[in-house]
């Protein structure tokens, strides 16, 4: 029997969040954390969490498992359980809507700020805007982000200033468009990032790198942005 401790909070009935201790029979199988949550929900339908594709593509079920953020659907128990105990909490730093569901508004607001779309005001050619294989390669390790928020909500700088620090997820995407050979708004994008908070609240502790379920490296992308700012200003 696996000991499971779940963060529960229903703002309509609970005065404060509480931890629900329960047990589940895994029959010796190395289940994914999402399977455990689904089984628990079968016995207690009030348990609330987000999930969709159940294969690490949609980014809906980002939660904190035994202290580390990750996607419940692709985190096997063998990877996270210690001393036969699984503790599941919502992603830290964001307001809790109910149980494991957090309000992602601040996260999306930061994403919106970096203008996550291609800006190019030159007339569109008859065919696609072409890139060389080398130019396309620069987007590898950037475009794969699924916006699960595991990185930004593991970042203390984002916890303290979620309204001013863009956070690792947003900055990874900021660099994705700065690095795109088809985007012509580089100067405008950089000038929007050169304040003491948006980029420079990153102190390089790499929590984002250690939790990213897609194996991406926001810290490196932030370093590239800093270098671009430096090149532009010196």
């Amino acid at each position: 029997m696996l000991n499971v401790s779940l963060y529960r909070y229903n703002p309509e009935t609970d005065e404060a969040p509480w931890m629900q201790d329960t047990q589940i029979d895994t029959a010796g199988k190395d289940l994914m954390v999402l399977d455990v949550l689904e089984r628990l929900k079968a016995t207690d339908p009030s348990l609330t969490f987000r999930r969709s594709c159940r294969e690490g593509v949609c980014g809906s079920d980002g939660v904190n498992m035994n202290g580390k953020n990750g996607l419940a659907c692709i985190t096997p128990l063998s990877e996270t359980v210690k001393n036969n105990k699984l503790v599941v909490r919502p992603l830290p730093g964001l307001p809790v809507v109910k149980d494991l569901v957090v309000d992602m508004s601040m996260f999306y607001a930061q994403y919106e700020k970096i203008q996550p779309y291609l800006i190019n005001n030159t007339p569109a050619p008859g065919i696609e805007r072409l890139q060389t294989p080398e130019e396309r390669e620069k987007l590898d390790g950037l475009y794969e982000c699924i916006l699960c928020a595991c990185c930004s909500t593991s970042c203390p700088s984002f916890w303290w200033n979620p309204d001013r620090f863009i956070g690792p997820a947003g900055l990874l995407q900021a660099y994705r468009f700065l690095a795109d050979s088809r985007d012509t708004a580089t100067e405008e994008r950089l000038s929007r990032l050169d304040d003491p908070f948006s980029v420079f609240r990153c102190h390089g502790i790499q929590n984002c790198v250690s939790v990213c379920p897609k194996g991406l490296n926001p810290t490196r992308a932030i370093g590239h942005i800093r270098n671009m700012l430096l090149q532009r200003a010196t």
Partner: protein
Amino acid sequence: MGMVTSITNYGRSGLSDWMAQRVSGVVLLCYVVFLTFFMLTNPALTFNEWEALFQQNWMRTFSLLALLSMIVHAWVGLWSVTTDYITTRQLGAIGTPLRLFLQGVAALLAFYYLVWGIQILWGI
């Protein structure tokens, strides 16, 4: 959400703060390495030798540079700490007045140390 603004950080832009922090850090590192080297190579250091070192103009200049670097370094660092933890988000309405008060204390202390440091360096 518009551009993020700030009037209390060291150099107005995030990049200039970042640069100031790196440059001042390198100066402080050089100063510490030099003093450590000096003391290791003069194991039986006397007061007179120590005084002679600080009577040279280049040493006074180097020391003043290190002192200024420490002030800049401390300001950039403490500004980050206060704007992380002493905020309206963390503490409610008291956040902003308390942060400005603490930043004022830090600025006053830094200025006092600067004056005091100059008095010591050129008073030897």
